[in-house]
């Protein structure tokens, strides 16, 4: 199969689903879905000639005859045991199984609704226009459900959403979708983990729309540590109102091909967004981060720190854009991508971008690539630490920097362990 064939097979699936009147959650958004499908037909799958996909070819992803219809679903309870990646993690409070929402025990101040229960009052496309990009269009056309989470007041507990794609004997394409609202002055902590269960190839096309009201705060952790050779594309759009504060940590270690699109819109003065990424690729893994931070109004701040390590034949790509709109004076925006390239067959691509239409701004970006600091290595060895251990320590410290500010102790520790494992650093070396 190739991209064109997959495209027509998906269009055919859409027509089939459309006719299945008993497909309950389908109907409320039917006109929107149609529009999205049209957009998908027009946009098609991007190739590397598309500027946004210059460094990441989807060819290995698009060669499977994916099924979009929901396969028989496993029991969430059973899944927990099946997914080793959940080991050492907080309990799951909401499952998105092949895109269908199954709430468990959610914190009291977190309201939950879904397509299945709330129908067309569920907001869709308000932050990510349905026809803006192929994968958003595709998700809008096919998402079997939209899980809506809204926070009111300060909720100290972490809310854990597990996105699981579980193929049933044949390649599966899943369209999980989240809609998140943090109400004025509310504070939310959210962990979204991405997992797969089953043997067949699967592609998860995740979309989330996030709205932060005035003075709202969200800490969002994206946990991408799937040990299988799976494909994951995420597109998250966040809009921040006045004085809202967003922090996102992306822990990207797993999967065969992983692409994260993180679109941040600062629309209220005083809003602040901080994005952090810890990425390690090995084998033939491809991890591609794209960020866009739009400073649409004055006096907003943003900061991005991505640390990446490429080993073996892995590829890391970072494309980060800071876009300052006309009139967005007193903008302060910072972005940094630091990468270590550790093997002669690995690749690092970086495109830090500034697009600036206001003059009273301070915008900076930096990008470096290189090997481990030989001086630091020598220093450690001169203190009696064996070279391999010294390398591991430095590697761990390098990646860890992106996670330093992660407030959840449990997650930070777990991430540290995973990074240490990748760096071949014995766990007891972590303090």
């Amino acid at each position, binding site marked *: 199969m190739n991209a064109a064939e997959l495209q027509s097979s998906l269009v055919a699936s859409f027509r089939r689903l459309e006719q299945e009147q008993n497909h309950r959650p389908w109907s409320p958004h039917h006109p929107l879905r149609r529009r999205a499908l049209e957009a998908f037909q027009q946009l098609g799958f991007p190739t590397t000639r598309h*500027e946004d996909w210059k*460094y990441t070819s989807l060819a290995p992803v698009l060669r499977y005859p994916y099924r979009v219809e929901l396969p028989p679903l496993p029991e969430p309870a059973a899944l927990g045991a099946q997914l080793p990646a959940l080991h050492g993690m907080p309990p799951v409070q909401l499952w998105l199984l092949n895109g269908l929402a199954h709430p468990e025990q959610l914190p009291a101040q977190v309201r939950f609704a879904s397509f299945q229960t709330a129908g067309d009052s569920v907001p869709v496309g308000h932050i990510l226009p349905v026809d803006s990009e192929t994968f958003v269009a595709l998700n809008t056309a096919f998402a079997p459900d939209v899980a809506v989470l809204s926070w009111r007041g300060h909720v100290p507990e972490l809310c854990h959403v597990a996105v699981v794609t579980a193929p049933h004997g044949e390649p599966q394409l899943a369209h999980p979708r989240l809609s998140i609202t943090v109400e004025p002055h509310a504070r939310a902590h959210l962990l979204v983990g991405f997992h797969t269960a089953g043997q067949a190839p699967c592609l998860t096309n995740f979309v989330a729309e996030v709205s932060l009201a005035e003075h709202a705060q969200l800490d969002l952790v994206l946990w991408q540590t799937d040990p299988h050779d799976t494909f994951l594309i995420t597109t998250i759009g966040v809009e921040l109102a006045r004085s809202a504060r967003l922090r996102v940590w992306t822990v990207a270690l797993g999967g065969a091909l992983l692409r994260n699109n993180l679109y941040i819109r600062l629309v209220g003065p005083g809003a602040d967004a901080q994005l952090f990424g810890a990425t390690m690729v090995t084998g033939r893994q491809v991890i591609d981060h794209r960020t866009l931070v739009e400073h649409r109004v004055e006096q907003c701040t943003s900061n991005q720190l991505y640390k990446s390590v490429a080993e073996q034949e892995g590829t890391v790509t970072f494309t980060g854009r800071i876009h300052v709109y*006309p*009139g967005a*004076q007193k903008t302060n925006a910072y972005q940094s991508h630091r*990468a270590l*390239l*550790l*093997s*002669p*067959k*690995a*690749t*690092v*691509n*970086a*495109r*830090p*971008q*500034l*697009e*600036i*239409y*206001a*003059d*009273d*701004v*301070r*915008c*900076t*970006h*930096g*990008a*470096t*690539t*290189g*090997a481990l600091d030989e001086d630091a290595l020598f220093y450690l060895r001169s203190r009696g630490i064996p070279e391999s251990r010294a390398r591991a320590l430095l590697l761990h410290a390098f990646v860890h920097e992106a996670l330093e500010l992660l407030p959840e102790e449990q997650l930070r520790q777990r991430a540290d362990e995973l990074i240490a494992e990748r760096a071949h650093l014995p766990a007891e070396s972590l303090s």
Partner: protein
Amino acid sequence: MAVQQDDILQQVTSAEYKYGFVAPIEEEIAPIGLNEEIIRYIWERKGEPEWMLEWRLRAYRHWKTMQEPRWAKVVYPPIDYQGISYYAAPKKRHVRSLDEIDPEIRRMFEKLGIPLEEQKLLAGVAVDAVLDSASVATTFKEKLAELGIIFCSMSEAIQKYPELVQKYLGSVVPYTDNFFAALNSAVFSDGSFVYVPPGVRCPMELSTYFRINAARTGQFERTLIIADEGSYVSYLEGCTAPMRDEHQLHAAVVELIALDGAEIKYSTVQNWYPGDREGRGGIYNFVTKRGICLGKESKISWTQVETGSAITWKYPSVILKGEGSVGEFYSVAVTNNFQQADTGTKMIHIGRHTRSRIVSKGIAAGRSSNTYRGLVRILRSADHARNYTQCDSLLIGSSCGAHTFPYIEVLNPTAVTEHEATTSKIGEDMLFYCRQRGISEEDAVALIVNGYCREVLSHLPMEFAVEAQKLLAISLEGSVG
């Protein structure tokens, strides 16, 4: 240099574009439009050998299959490639000595501050003057010939040194490279040719002065510089054009070849007519410049000061093939009013221990758009390659845009790349400090901008640095207050 700065600032209090006159020179102009007949016409007029016709036609046929690139951050209405003339040359140009030059041409170049009489020239600068499509005068030829240095027009080189031209023309920028390079390959009419023999250090700056004079013409010059083993040459390029309401197309190609241990320093002060304050007229400057460090320990250094043109699309690049070779790019790009610039460089590291350095200073004022676009590519073979990039943008006023789009591709674990960029406005504190010492706001802006660009300007030869400083001040006039 520093003490001259305020003199310069005093000189430029009221000037707008001062090179905007049209000289009454009799010219032969090709019929409007582009087809194989026109290419034959150019080829015949220039009396070129047969292989050049084939070369041109191959490029033309390829060009017809190509699309104009649209990825740059510049906006302009479609160019009617059939609406312009591809060849214009002064009628009286076959001269044996400088005394025979058409007095009108001589007067025009004098008005531009480029005297063609050798005795009047600043010591150490040899000039090749290119008017519209044709080279009209090359000075100091004999003196250079004593050292074995060839400095002549491209037309002459095709006649006299076909083996060198055939070997190197299109070897760095093949006609398939891009739309404008293909167009240039098909229709280029003249330009400069330089060959520096092994071990020779060219004792003077070689300079070409480009001038578009005729209306409804495009200028398509081609420059080829070959620095043989262990040689050194510094080459300067300046350019101006009359003020016209229409846009004029300039699509040049420059190729540099540095063999073992050779060094080429190429400096440009680009001051094509930028259009008026409302964005009417101005040159479309679509230029392909590329050098190859073919030999080991060779070096190519580009320095550019871009103040002119309505649109600039230009990425002087270096292919670092020879082991230990060095590429440099120093750039100041100023845009004001409705000017648009999308400029930067490419450093392609192939050889081991290759090094590159990029320093770019963009200044945007008025309603202009100023983009840095650059590529640093470290191939698998480029062990221990190094790149350092610093690109800064300065915004003057809130209606302009400054953008930075670097591409960094690293495939070798022993390589180190570093890229830093900042965008900010001109410091209010700096302005106030200058004004408290009695310096006017406009002069303070010019002073601060010159300081901001100093690292780049310091790489220009003296005469050019002075001219460049003047241009910076003129270009930013009316941008404050």
